[in-house]
């Protein structure tokens, strides 16, 4: 019970931050991904964009939103906590590092839920015909966020300075989306990059989200890989996130 209360307190502390400074979250989770959706439609090269393509672009924008929320925005918060002495304050408490990380992850999941729901509504308004499998979509979003939050925690815990960490989280937040076949098909990926991008978490996330938006439920393989990736990144994140310095 203590662990649950601890996580909820960490969540509430960061929620207050969102309440006071919603701007960066709105930019990262909604404005940029929506703009990217419109950009992808505009450069797709045909006047009549097929429903399948529209769904791929929407799935891409959802992945973009998740990546920006979990790595860029959340990474920034984690770095700020570490380099402004707030983490030191948490370290003085009878609080397990995992409770701190999970409190932050709950915060990120709440943002992901808001971001994804808003993008789905925006997609509907912009004429994307989807047949959402909500259960599958929820699981994909959850696993994608766990995996990306793990990366964020590792970067924030290992960076030597705020500027180094912030550069890394910004690069990774956008890079993981643009290096993966999120807005385009895997066949369109250059040969050398294809091998790398095939193993990026965003590749699996985009494929699974696209399937969920199309009402398909054949996402088991992608979910399995995302689960493994989430387990590995979170485990590494917990190990990096030690209260005690050497």
């Amino acid at each position, binding site marked *: 019970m203590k662990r649950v209360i601890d996580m909820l307190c960490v969540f509430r502390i960061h929620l207050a931050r969102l309440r006071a400074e919603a701007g960066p979250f709105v930019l990262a989770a909604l404005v940029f991904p929506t703009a990217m959706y419109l950009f992808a439609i505009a450069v797709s090269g045909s006047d009549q964009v097929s429903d399948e393509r529209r769904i791929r672009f929407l799935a891409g924008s959802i992945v973009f939103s998740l990546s920006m929320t979990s790595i860029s925005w959340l990474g920034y918060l984690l770095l700020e906590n570490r380099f402004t002495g707030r983490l*030191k*304050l948490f370290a003085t*408490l009878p609080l397990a590092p995992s409770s701190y990380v999970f409190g932050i992850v709950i915060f990120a999941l709440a943002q992901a839920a808001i971001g994804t729901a808003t993008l789905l509504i925006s997609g509907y308004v912009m004429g994307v015909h989807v047949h959402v499998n909500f259960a599958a979509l929820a699981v994909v979003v959850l696993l994608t966020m766990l995996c990306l939050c793990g990366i964020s925690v590792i970067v924030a815990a290992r960076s030597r300075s705020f500027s180094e960490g912030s550069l890394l989280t910004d690069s990774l937040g956008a890079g993981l989306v643009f290096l993966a076949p999120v807005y385009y098909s895997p066949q369109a990926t250059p040969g050398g990059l294809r091998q790398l991008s095939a193993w990026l978490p965003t590749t699996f996330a985009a494929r699974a989200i696209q399937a969920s938006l199309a009402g398909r439920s054949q996402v088991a393989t992608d979910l399995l890989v995302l689960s493994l990736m989430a387990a590995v990144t979170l485990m590494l994140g917990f190990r990096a996130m030690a209260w005690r310095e050497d």
Partner: protein
Amino acid sequence: MNDKSLLVLNHSSSVQSSAQQSAASPTAVRVRGLKKRYKDGTAANRGIDFDVKTGEVVSILGPNGAGKTTFLRQLTTELRPTSGSIEIFGVNAIAEPERVKQMMGITPQEAGLFQTLTVREHLELFARFKGLSKQQARLAAFDTRDELGLSAESGKRVGLLSGGQRRRILIGLALLGCPRLLVLDEPTTGLDPASRHSVWQVIRRVVADGATVVFSTHYIEEAEQLSDRIGIISEGRLVACDSLDRLFTRLEQSYRLEYSDPFDPFGEMCVRYFATFAEAQDEIAREQLSEYSIARASLEDIYFTLTGERPPSRNTEGSE
């Protein structure tokens, strides 16, 4: 009776009551052979043995870079020692940091607060981390903000407060949940005199309630006012840790003659130490001093003697 004598009397009674109390009580802190060598090779602590009885107030003095903060950070489990042992109320602090932190209230030297949370939100949420129920957390937050003079700022976001007010919140966070041991790293640095006195009152209150306090400070007056024992760290070693009275016995020359040089009357005041009052008087007669004062040595003198530092803007020497 002057202020100083009152101060000494108060201090002695505090030492006495604490001694009586601790005689029957267990050890709160037990440190043995504590060494800390950083990765860059700096030896910050070079083998510290340190005991604090339950209910005692022990202050740690020492020059900048002497190893005070490193020592306290190891005590609070924030920093892993290179070797040695630390026990807090009999619990191994190195092996069970979380259990130990449940018994401690900690104010780090530098820690950041959350700019977007109000004072009340800080106190309530951090009380919850310490295991208090919602109702208890609300009451504890209320009492703490009152005690630290933060009632008027209760609903304000921390980002709008002054540095001194933020420091008081950090102390308040340490007090939540009535911890058995308070470890405060320079708690009153940056506070105005009134705030400093209110923090002293709070420390006295928690000690009266049975808590044990270990704190570091740069203010010698603070150490004198609050402590049962005073530890002095120099170059990573605890060179002394005793009551004020016993620390005085360490000085071979406990009479302090401060005078202006007859050949340089507008220069800095000179200070010399003597073993007896008569020796100091002989010196006055020999040098035909006209402007001088003789006093018993102070904690400041002990500090400078034990750390080997020199007081600023004074020529200091012992008698030959």
